[in-house]
């Protein structure tokens, strides 16, 4: 990530140590993950030790310290979704993306995650793709939606 962009985000928060989480959130939103150079830069400018920043960045699930794909797929595995077949939806999503939860594919297209509840149990099974909630998912529809991201696949 370009140091200028990191600095611009830090400037927006007036380099205050109390804004650490907000700065990390902004970097995460802009860059999809928090690279090492961002941690060093924040550490220097906020005068917060890197150990503290790493502690915060690994505490919250909202932050990623490894590169993330262009599309974030969150499959809900909460109780309501689970009883309605979330595990089949997850299987289909894994097959369609070729990755397991917590992973990103080498082409940086997808990152797959499981979540424990998205808070809309009545719509279950739920999959959230790039912030948009898809309710009443079936394995087939999950595969179709995932494959349809960035237009139809050229390889077929």
């Amino acid at each position, binding site marked *: 990530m370009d140091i200028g962009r990191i600095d611009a985000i830090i400037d927006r928060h007036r380099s205050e140590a109390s804004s650490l989480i907000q700065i990390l959130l902004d970097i995460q939103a802009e860059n999809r993950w928090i690279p090492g150079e961002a941690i*060093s830069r924040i550490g220097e400018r906020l005068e917060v*030790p*890197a*150990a*503290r920043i*790493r*502690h915060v960045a*690994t*505490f919250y699930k909202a932050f990623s310290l490894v590169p993330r794909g262009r599309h974030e797929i969150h499959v809900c595995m909460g109780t309501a979704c689970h009883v309605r077949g979330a595990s089949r939806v997850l299987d289909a999503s894994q097959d369609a993306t070729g990755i397991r939860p917590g992973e990103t594919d080498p082409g940086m297209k997808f990152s797959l995650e499981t979540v424990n509840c998205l808070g809309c149990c009545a719509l279950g099974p739920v999959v959230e793709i790039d912030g948009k909630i898809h309710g009443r998912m079936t394995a087939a529809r999950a595969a179709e939606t995932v494959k349809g991201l960035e237009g139809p696949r050229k390889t077929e």
Partner: protein
Amino acid sequence: MKEIRLRIDGKEVAAPEGATVLEAAKTAGIRIPTLCHHDGLEPFGACRICIVEAEARGSSRLVVSCVYPVEENLAVRTRSPRIDRIRKTILDLLLAHAPDSPQVSGLAAEYGALRDRFEKEGSFCIHCGLCVRYCAEVKKKHAVGFIGRGIRKEICFIPEVASRECKGCKECFPLCPTSYLQAAYALAESLALPCVINRGHCCSHGAQSP
């Protein structure tokens, strides 16, 4: 400074305002077991083994004595069947992580804790935070920190800092109740620190090392 009077195990104790129950007990010669406490560091309240019963205005509560400030007329009990049971459970859990730690097994013998109550989870670290806090508070280097949370919480050396600071220090090693710290350091040294050297940031190895 105002003096606070309280009772610990029936004994009248006076302590300065702002002192913790643990400190008050210590000055009165009453022993409360601890694992994460260190006189030179800020109270942390991580291990919970110093839990006591504190009674004030007719109601009794369980409090962690290393972070609980003394109060006027507080009546503290440092041993009771209830407290012993809680301490035993904490030790049962810690034994699943660090069964051979001398400090943990010493307390385990005292409270009748069981080595095999919980499935072994060979993570060795008991998250007392002594290494992390010592490095931060006393050395002000922050070479080691916690990462993750819950069952995935662990200590982690920051290569950029550790490669500069740790080799000549290692003052945190004797503080660790489980010797996991030494193991983690050896691992970090062999895995993470060389790549820092290769990238040219390092000054504590090879010819330049003291």
